[in-house]
């Protein structure tokens, strides 16, 4: 039985592995190869010269990278603070209401990200849902809330909300009630229970949630374009420009590789520290 388990396991992994090899691993290899080509070439038949990596510092692309990482970090921290009370309530306090919130949040995931962001443009712009009604009813008028850095972070918080919420709920529900009860019986204060029971025991959920939001936020494009009106240029934007208007594939590839290395090492580090079987509820 053990042997057949091994064989079937291997065979069932084949289809998706083939798909991912052909359309995930192979493209990344191509990007890696292009990134060492001389500037502005469109084939791989050139002598590699790594010059595209030098441009990162000489032409200030590192600033875009820092903006991306900074806004993603801010969004991650904010999301943790916003999601924790709700996730706690969903795991430990709400009963039927948890299902309602889950369904309501999942449904928003099925609405195209740019339609939702466009909705915020209509809500926050001058003459939009908020400003327009305030002006008509109360007589308040202001210049809309769009096209700055905080609104980009706001957009990230909005779009990646479910990616923080659900892992947190999963993490917190892994904290046994007995452990919290025991801590309380032994005289721990609420704050102590939070720091010494809840946080460490729900760490896998926190790691996954923070990682997802940070990684997706660092590579995000639509938030800064639609809401931020390019108040700052994020790295994904630079990459897109290098490929499209710039017609400089090696530059775009080099920028992508740098982003991939930062994000990838974080993702691999985080994922390797978490026991997937345990989080997803393996039985035996």
């Amino acid at each position, binding site marked *: 039985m053990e042997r057949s388990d091994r064989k079937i396991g291997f065979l*069932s992994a084949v289809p*998706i592995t083939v798909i991912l090899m052909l*359309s995930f691993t192979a493209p990344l290899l191509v990007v890696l190869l292009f990134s060492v080509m001389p500037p502005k070439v469109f084939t791989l038949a050139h002598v590699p010269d790594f010059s595209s990596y030098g441009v990162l510092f000489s032409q200030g692309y590192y600033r875009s990278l820092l903006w991306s990482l900074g806004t993603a970090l801010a969004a991650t921290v904010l999301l943790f603070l916003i999601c924790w009370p709700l996730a706690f*309530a969903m795991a430990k306090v709400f009963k039927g209401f948890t299902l309602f919130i889950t369904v309501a949040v999942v449904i928003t995931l099925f609405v195209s990200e740019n339609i939702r962001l466009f909705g915020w443009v209509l809500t926050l712009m001058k003459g939009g849902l908020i400003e327009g009604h305030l002006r008509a009813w109360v007589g308040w008028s202001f210049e809309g809330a769009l096209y700055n850095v905080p609104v980009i972070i706001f957009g990230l918080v909005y779009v990646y909300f479910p990616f923080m919420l659900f892992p947190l709920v999963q993490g917190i529900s892994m904290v046994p009630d007995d452990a919290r009860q025991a801590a309380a019986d032994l005289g721990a204060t609420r704050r102590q229970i939070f720091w010494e029971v809840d946080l460490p025991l729900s760490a896998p959920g926190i790691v996954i949630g923070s990682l997802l939001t940070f990684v997706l936020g660092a*590579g995000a494009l639509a938030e800064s374009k639609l809401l931020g009106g390019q108040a700052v240029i994020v790295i994904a934007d630079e*990459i897109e420009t290098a490929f499209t208007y710039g017609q400089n594939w090696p530059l775009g590839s080099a920028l*992508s590789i740098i982003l991939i290395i930062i994000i990838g090492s974080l993702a691999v580090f985080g994922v390797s520290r978490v026991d997937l079987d345990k989080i997803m509820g393996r*039985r035996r």
Partner: protein
Amino acid sequence: MRIGRATRIALYLYGVLVIAFLYLPLLSVGFASVSKARYLTFPIKRYAFQWYGKALESYTVQDLLWTSLSIAGIVTVISMIVGFFGALAFARYQWRFRGVFQKLILLPIFFPQAVLGLALLMWFNSIGIIPDWKTAVVAHLVWISPIATLVIAIRAYSFDPALEEAARDMGASTWVVLKEVTGPLLMPGVISAGLFSFLLSWGNFPLSLFTTGADSTLPEWLYAKMVSGYSPLVPTVGILSIATSMILLIVAFTIYWFVRSARERGARII
């Protein structure tokens, strides 16, 4: 640890507020889609449904709908099949490279989609494929088939391996076990994975952006219009796209509910 009444009420209120916050932008889009004026300002003075008629008549919109539908349809079918086997390898069987495999499945989900789209564009170019909507199917699969795998894996984790072992002990072949035991047990997971796949592909924008070539999907077209300036068709087509998803969800839930209540009735008779 008891939670006080006041805290409890505050938490419920907080939940309601968060949901309201999530749906507020959709409310704006909804209002904008029924505004009569060509240039939108709130509060809306006159309501009209004319833009819906215009959108449905437009050949461009019909083309977009058809492209999005074809991509989502094919992605759904492939994801369900691939995800079914992937989930077995992910959750059910003990085999040598399971740990590595689990991480390989997770990586594409953690990957910035716009960059992935560009990488695919270069890959297609270097092997001589001209991108059109079929290459977008491949792009969507990279991201959606791992998600389908995870959705089915959750189901695969929760079923008792003893059921399969019992069937095998009674002499069923691997194929029969798969068809008669594992398949039916995982079916709810496969169906929800299919639903997820369709809806995620239908709404996806960053992967389509670089991989559809001359063709265009609904979210892509919307994005192009949003960036180039306001058009009253944008909120209208946006709402049409959302409505399609919602109708599909409602149909799926209704079928689920009917099947479940029919089965419960059947169980009672036996």
